[in-house]
């Protein structure tokens, strides 16, 4: 039976699931965003933008839920093999990644509102516009959205490099403890 909550030595199933699902979704959204932006105006472009926005709303909600979840648990801390600057860099990277997970949907929502296109979530319901029609705000928000997406790709690269460094060079638990059946200290039933 998988343990749901985090402890001081291990991540629980909820945190792990949220992490990997978010990672997959973010990769998909980056690919989708790059592809759809280059399409000529047409029904396909509209539909892909609609899909991108719908998924973006889900990412925002899940990320906020993750904050709520993580704030109520201790979570595993630094390992003996984590040097002080590595710990600091990791924390800063994680914080920046969270900022992107919130900032990207928000700037997207603002850009869509400013463009006069209310965000419809899978055609089920429509979000209120955050702002009224405003062409220059739309351009600004869209530019920040793009820039933040590129920044996030860099942060993800750094994040992966860090995980691999600890896994391959230090041969410690860092990556394993986030992996589905990872940590040595994990229950054999996980």
């Amino acid at each position, binding site marked *: 039976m998988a343990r749901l909550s985090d402890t001081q030595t291990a991540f629980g199933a909820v945190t792990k699931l949220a992490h990997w699902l978010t990672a997959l979704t973010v990769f998909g959204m980056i690919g989708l965003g790059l592809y759809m932006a280059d399409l000529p*105006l*047409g*029904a*396909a472009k*509209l*539909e892909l*933008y*609609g899909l991108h926005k719908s998924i973006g709303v889900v990412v925002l909600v899940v990320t906020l839920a993750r904050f709520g979840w993580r704030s109520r648990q201790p979570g595993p801390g630094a390992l003996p093999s984590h040097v002080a600057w590595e710990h600091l860099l990791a924390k800063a990277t994680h914080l920046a990644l969270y900022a992107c997970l919130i900032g990207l949907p928000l700037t997207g929502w603002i850009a869509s509102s400013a*463009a*006069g*296109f*209310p*965000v*419809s979530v*899978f*055609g*089920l319901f*429509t979000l209120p516009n955050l702002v009224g*029609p405003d*062409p220059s705000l739309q351009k600004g928000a869209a530019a920040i959205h793009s820039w933040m997406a590129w920044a996030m790709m860099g942060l993800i690269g750094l994040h992966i490099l860090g995980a691999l460094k600890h896994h391959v060079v230090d041969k410690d638990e860092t990556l394993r403890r986030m992996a589905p059946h990872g940590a040595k200290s994990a229950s054999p039933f996980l």
Partner: protein
Amino acid sequence: MIAFRIGAPLLAGGLFLASPVWAADSWTTVPSDSALTFQGSQMGADFTGHFQSFSSDILFSPDDLPGSKVDVTIDMMSATTGSADRDAQIPQGPWFAAEDHPTAHFVTTAIAPGADGGYLAQAELTIREVTKPVEIPFTVAIDGAKAVADGSLTIDRVDYHVGLGEWESGDAVGRDVTITFHIEATK
């Protein structure tokens, strides 16, 4: 003599019937207080477009519905929908094709009393190259020399060839479009 006795009243009666007393009133719209809008949807989100420029010839009297007629010409380059991107697309070929069809036309063919003190108009609506008969319920409130008329009608844009091809399924841009008018006029 007899002819004169019959003829004169007949002539007088004929002149009386032909007099303006029984013809429908002619109304002049007040553009600043009138609006012609259309509501569509895009990827599940509604949007409202306004035709900023349209002109109407209105003959209307509740007592002379057979003599009443509404004739509206709409400038198809004048639509604004709250989105610069969409406004740039709407006059183009797949949609309004405004270069080839600069105006749309609505003209009533019959007006009859409708439900709840309102009216029902049979009309011909022409958008792009298509003319179709439509039926539109509307209300008119007359206060002296001022009249306020309201009505709306929902069409399937595909019937008028608006958004065919890749747009025809209605998934990206909905097919139902509700056209609403609010006319204030004086006579």
